[in-house]
């Protein structure tokens, strides 16, 4: 293949990717943005979602994401600290990394099945914010571990040496010299996970249910925005509402993504 043909094809490939992306976003935002007025966000769905707004689903999404973050962050940060500060390459660390890598590759529907049989049935939590949140926590755990590890990696060795030479114990060194400097990276991982949780559907629908009623406790079933969007579209309930929900989803994800990548580029990448 000659150089010029190859160059044209590659340019076309890159451009078509951008074009399709724009088409997708444009289509949904064009139809969906007009729907988004204050009432949309302040009312819950009425008559199965044909009318009203998406308030209960927004609350559900926030609650689910919050539970996931609360459980996954200590586990993820603790794992990263252990891997980076308390061991070197050994059988234990290889096993842990293998487990984390594999967990990252498990499809969301499998998480849904697991969450259903384990949290909903076995632990008797029922379809609830708790079941959904814990399942999501398992899904985002690898991300938190990975980004925290990357953040810890960028911290110069001298910080540790200094801390130890001043009589610091291992844990004191972690708390005072390492973690405070790894915080931006940890935060980025959390934000990335928030973005992922907002869009997650398959695992949520099997564990948190699809109730449109405002939740009253962690054990209430709830429908998230992504699930709501899916149901509206698939059952053909209301295209208008679907577009509105979809547009909200896209805007949220856009926002979260931009913030996360901005943080990533500013604090984590340029250090190394």
């Amino acid at each position: 293949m000659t150089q010029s043909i190859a160059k044209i094809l590659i340019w076309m490939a890159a451009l078509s990717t951008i074009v399709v992306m724009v088409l997708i976003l444009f289509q949904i935002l064009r139809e969906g943005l007009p729907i988004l007025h204050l009432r949309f966000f302040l009312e819950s769905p009425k008559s199965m979602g044909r009318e009203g707004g998406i308030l209960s689903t927004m609350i559900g999404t926030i609650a689910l994401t919050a539970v996931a973050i609360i459980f996954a962050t200590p586990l993820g940060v603790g794992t990263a600290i252990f891997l980076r500060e308390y061991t070197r390459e050994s059988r234990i660390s290889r096993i842990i990394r293998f487990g984390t890598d594999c967990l990252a590759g498990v499809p969301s529907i499998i998480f849904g099945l697991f969450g259903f049989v384990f949290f909903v049935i076995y632990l008797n939590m029922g379809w609830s914010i708790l079941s959904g949140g814990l399942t999501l926590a398992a899904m985002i755990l690898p991300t938190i571990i990975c980004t925290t590890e990357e953040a810890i990696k960028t911290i110069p060795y001298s910080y540790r040496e200094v801390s130890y030479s001043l009589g610091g114990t291992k844990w004191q060194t972690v708390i005072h010299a390492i973690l405070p400097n790894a915080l931006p990276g940890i935060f980025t991982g959390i934000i990335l996970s928030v973005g992922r949780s907002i869009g997650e559907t398959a695992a949520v629908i099997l564990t948190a249910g699809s109730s449109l009623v405002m939740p009253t406790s962690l054990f209430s079933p709830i429908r998230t925005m992504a699930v709501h969007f899916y149901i509206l579209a698939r059952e053909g309930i209301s295209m208008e509402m679907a577009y509105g929900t979809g547009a909200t989803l896209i805007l949220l994800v856009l926002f979260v993504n931009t913030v996360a990548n901005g943080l990533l580029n500013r604090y984590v990448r340029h250090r190394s």
Partner: protein
Amino acid sequence: MIVEIKEKIIEKMLLLIALSSISILALIAIFIFGEGLPLIWKIGPRAFILGERWVPSQGSFGILPMIFGSFWVTLGALFLGIPLGLACAIFLCEWTPPWAAIVLRPTMQLLAAIPSVIYGFWGLIVLVPLVRNYLGGPGLSILSGSMILGFMILPTIISISEDSLRALPPSFKAGGLALGATHWQTIWRVLIPAAKSGIVASIILGMGRAIGETMAMIMILGNAVKMPSSFLDSARTLTTNIGIEMGYASGDHRQALFATGVILFFIIMILNSSAIILSKRRMG
């Protein structure tokens, strides 16, 4: 002394925390297998995997149509995703003018972040009617699914392939050019073969992603439970089978869906392990 005891306790606790990811993986395997394996045993692995009829109301649980569905959709997705993804990776690595990088890179990151239900929705609204009108068939088809899925796995293929290309020593490129090859020839004959294992790893991971995709496929594939015979046919994948029927399944039917999950779990584990091994080898 107290301090030393405290440090020991903290170390043990961190070890326990660090074992959480592998524990969760084990739990997933235990519970999914626990629910699904009995059914596979009951009707026999051959009947389950090679059976062509899936009629839960009659107790027929053959998942061959779904295996074929997953296979063809993934194949189609790779057919679109590999050339497109590789091209974009090459573009990002070798040919980007500064302005293009500013546009293309955020686009890639966005591609990965958009929820799959959005892709499914757009496919349903735009792609499916197009296929129906110009190519025939119900529109809800393997072809439509492949196109959307191919697009969805682009970020995976692009990011890992790009990393592999960037990790190559600059001497490779310099050497190729010094021998009188054009830029493109250097890329095609020197760089890509050198980055081979990373690129293959990215493809395997893309495959894993494709096989595991559920929501977008439910919305686009049409979900006909029969052996697909052409790209314009509706079909089900292993994932959509679970996703659609889990809501109302019970008893044997539910167990059969878990059994489908068992098969899926195996396939994904094999794929991901190969990718991990491949990328470890690439790292040295």
